């Protein structure tokens, strides 16, 4: 059957397949389809950079134009992964520089990127267009200068929320005068001031610029200059939104915004002066995405501004919005799909604002399209969670962080099992769940029974026994990522569900009760898993085998154990015992 189509026809047909799942499926049909598919795949996504090696990638896919890589586990965002753990992009860049001279896009998340890597990227790929570095680290503004200077056709430079060693703002001036291709520029994470005139000229000669996210050092008074150069902007991140109160600054700002007819997304707002928010009123009705999570404005200024944005689909905001603000949001923003409420003072036990479960309930009632929630608060009840679950069976992402660990239902003092149980039972499309508060093994039973589409689960300070973990590993069919901290889960459930781990991307367990012996066993029996023990206080065999390891990271891989581990990471495989005893000699 496959022979009846000439290769050209198949290549053409396959060119309509963009999603990896489909391409993987056609690769399995027969050898010739596998070969045709692999030579025509242009975009690669690797969710764990250690699951596969550059050599394996290049061997199978010889002509790739876009690569996306993720490095450290998600809990690295909260300082749970020690410095030096890994996730280096340099070996990938070296291999790709040889094999993919026509590479156009590199997107990285939670990886270590050096100036050397950036220089190599800038010099190896003649048609390089897109560089996205989300939550990365390890490079300085000198590295950025290489990108600016050498990537003639650069379309996108997005530094995400990376940690950049900011030596100076001079790098931006390295963009040559004939670089006019920029579509997206995000430098919001940088601290030092870039030359404003260089920035202004860059913006002015980039007619296709759609996204511009400035850093804090760009003064508010100068923002109108940039807006006049780029009235076609779709997404704007302001610099600092603070200035002395002067009528001409305000009027300039208001008039500049009047000209931005395409603006749909706003962010920035550092050090916001509420009096300047009305300058944006002319664009508010078109805004679909609003990130006020760095804006320390309070009510009524805050809610007044947000309520102007009647077409809002996505709102990120601090808990200064309070319950009253969320009630107003629920009344005025009927298209809301995603809400994230961050804590303004995460370490204050009592809290400084009136943001409770009521606010979230109100939004769940008033916003029929709400499907994605991240909510930090200080009290929750089963009744509220049940209400939210019944209101929004279309929920896809639900992340709730009650600030005090193991906090019970504040009304009944019971665990929140029933509430989260209602979430997984009603929200049948739920793909991501983060839980908090007082939770027993029972909630995991609910999750294992109902959360059939759940792909990512985050658990902290929850559960009573291995039964909890067993419910999740044996029941959640779609589970890809599981991250656990400070739970009384040990060896039993892990070993009983060892093969489940090969169907997942990764498992993280820290401050749990998994013994060194069990880790060794798992690593020895499961050659297609890398079982990595992270012990900063010393080698895991310095105590008895029953001693719990500090942190455990298990992931499936076809690349074997990694070779770039620091001294506090041990791979459990059949050689581990001899390796450890050698190390202590």
């Amino acid at each position, binding site marked *: 059957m496959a022979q009846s189509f000439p290769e050209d026809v198949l290549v053409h047909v396959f060119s309509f397949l963009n999603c990896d799942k489909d391409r993987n499926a056609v690769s399995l049909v027969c050898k010739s389809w596998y070969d045709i598919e692999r030579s025509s795949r242009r975009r690669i996504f690797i969710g764990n950079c250690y699951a596969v090696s550059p050599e394996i990638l290049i061997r199978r896919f010889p002509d790739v134009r876009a690569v996306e890589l993720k490095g450290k586990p998600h809990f690295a*965002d*909260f*300082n*749970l992964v020690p410095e030096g753990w890994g996730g280096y992009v340099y070996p990938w860049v070296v291999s790709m520089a040889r094999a993919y001279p026509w590479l156009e896009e590199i997107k990285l998340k939670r990886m270590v990127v050096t100036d050397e890597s950036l220089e190599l990227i800038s010099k190896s790929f003649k048609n390089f267009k897109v560089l996205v570095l989300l*939550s990365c680290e390890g490079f300085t503004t000198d590295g950025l200068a290489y990108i600016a200077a050498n990537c003639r056709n650069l379309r996108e430079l997005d530094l995400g929320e990376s940690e950049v060693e900011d030596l100076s703002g001079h790098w931006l001036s390295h963009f040559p005068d004939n670089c006019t291709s920029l579509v997206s520029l995000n430098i919001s*994470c940088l601290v030092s001031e870039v030359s404003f005139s260089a920035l202004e000229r860059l913006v002015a000669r980039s007619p296709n610029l759609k996204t511009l996210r400035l850093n804090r050092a760009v003064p508010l008074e100068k923002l109108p200059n940039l807006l006049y150069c780029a009235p076609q902007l779709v997404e704007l991140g302001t610099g600092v939104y603070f200035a002395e*109160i*002067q*009528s001409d600054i*305000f*009027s300039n700002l*208001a008039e500049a915004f009047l000209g931005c007819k395409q603006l749909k997304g706003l962010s920035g707002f*550092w*050090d916001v*002066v*509420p*009096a300047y928010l*009305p*300058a944006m009123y002319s664009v508010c009705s078109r805004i679909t995405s609003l990130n006020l999570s*760095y804006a320390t404005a309070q009510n009524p200024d805050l809610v*007044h501004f947000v309520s102007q944005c009647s077409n809002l689909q996505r709102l990120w905001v601090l808990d200064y919005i309070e319950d009253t603000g969320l009630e107003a949001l629920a009344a005025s923003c009927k298209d809301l799909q995603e809400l994230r409420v*961050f*804590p303004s003072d*995460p*370490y204050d*036990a009592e809290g400084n604002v009136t943001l409770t479960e009521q606010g979230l309930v109100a939004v769940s009632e008033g916003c029929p399209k709400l499907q994605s929630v991240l909510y930090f608060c200080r009290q929750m009840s089963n009744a509220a969670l049940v209400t939210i679950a019944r209101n929004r069976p279309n929920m896809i992402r639900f992340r709730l*962080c009650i600030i005090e*660990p193991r906090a019970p239902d504040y009304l009944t003092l019971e665990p929140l099992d029933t509430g989260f149980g209602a979430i997984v039972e009603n929200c049948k499309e739920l793909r991501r769940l983060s839980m908090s508060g007082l939770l027993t093994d029972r909630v995991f039973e609910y999750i294992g029974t109902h959360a059939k589409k759940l792909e990512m689960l985050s658990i*902290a*300070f929850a559960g009573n026994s*291995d*039964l909890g973990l*067993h419910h999740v*590993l*044996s029941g959640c*069919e779609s589970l890809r990522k599981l991250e656990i901290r*400070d739970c*009384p889960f040990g060896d*039993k*459930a892990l*070993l*009983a*569900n*060892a*093969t*489940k781990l090969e*169907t997942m991307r990764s498992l993280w367990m820290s*401050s749990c*009760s998994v013994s060194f012996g069990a880790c060794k*066993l*798992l690593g020895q*029996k499961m050659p297609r898993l890398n079982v990595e023990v992270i012990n900063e*206080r010393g080698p895991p065999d310095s*105590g*008895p*085998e*029953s*001693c*719990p390891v*500090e942190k455990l990271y298990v992931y499936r891989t076809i690349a074997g154990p990694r070779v770039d581990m620091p001294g506090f990471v041990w791979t459990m495989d059949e050689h581990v015992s001899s390796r450890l005893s050698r190390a202590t000699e």
Partner: protein
Amino acid sequence: MAMISKEHKKEKLEFEETELRLGLPGGGGIVNGDLVKNGKRGYTETVDLKLNLALKETGKGENLQKEKNLISCSNDSVKHTHKAQVVGWPPVRSFRKSLMAVQKSNSEEGGGGAASFVKVSMDGAPYLRKVDLNMYKSYQDLYGALGKMFSSFTMGKCDSQGMMDFMNERKLMDVLNGSDFVPTYEDKDGDWMLVGDVPWGMFVGSCNRLCIMKGTEAIGLAPRAMEKCKNRS
């Protein structure tokens, strides 16, 4: 004979590895130190019976109970949840944390350590506000902040022309100091005083709440207020 049957067993296991399954993934675990992939053994079956038995047989006397593990090792595994600072909790990204800390310290630069919140009301305004007096170094600072805070009330609807007028600092001072509104405060004794009469530090220490009164209401507060009213009429 025994060797052949062992080989058969090995082949059977390998076959099952490649067999397409419609059942739940998992259910394959490590039992007795061996990887078992066939069937979906129940939790209790696999673990409580087999694994514990195996351990008892080897006579290691090791116990998978959490308490014993913890006692036999150093005290590192039990996490004490202090109210202050559990690592990585609450799960706020360091990027966000550091930015918030900078903004907070910027806004607190004016004052000392603890906050000193007082309520601020304004005649005719529907909302109360709160200010932290420690954030300001002088009366001028305070007036500036009050002006920003209550700007939207003094002109009713937010039109840019009215806003621009109000933004003009001279007018702001006029509004606060002049004919229409007078800033007053209630001190620790419960008396209503005119803002600005005592040194700043003393004011911060004695102020309970603020009220921006209409000039006519401020009659009787202090001689200066009365003089203002006289000058107007």
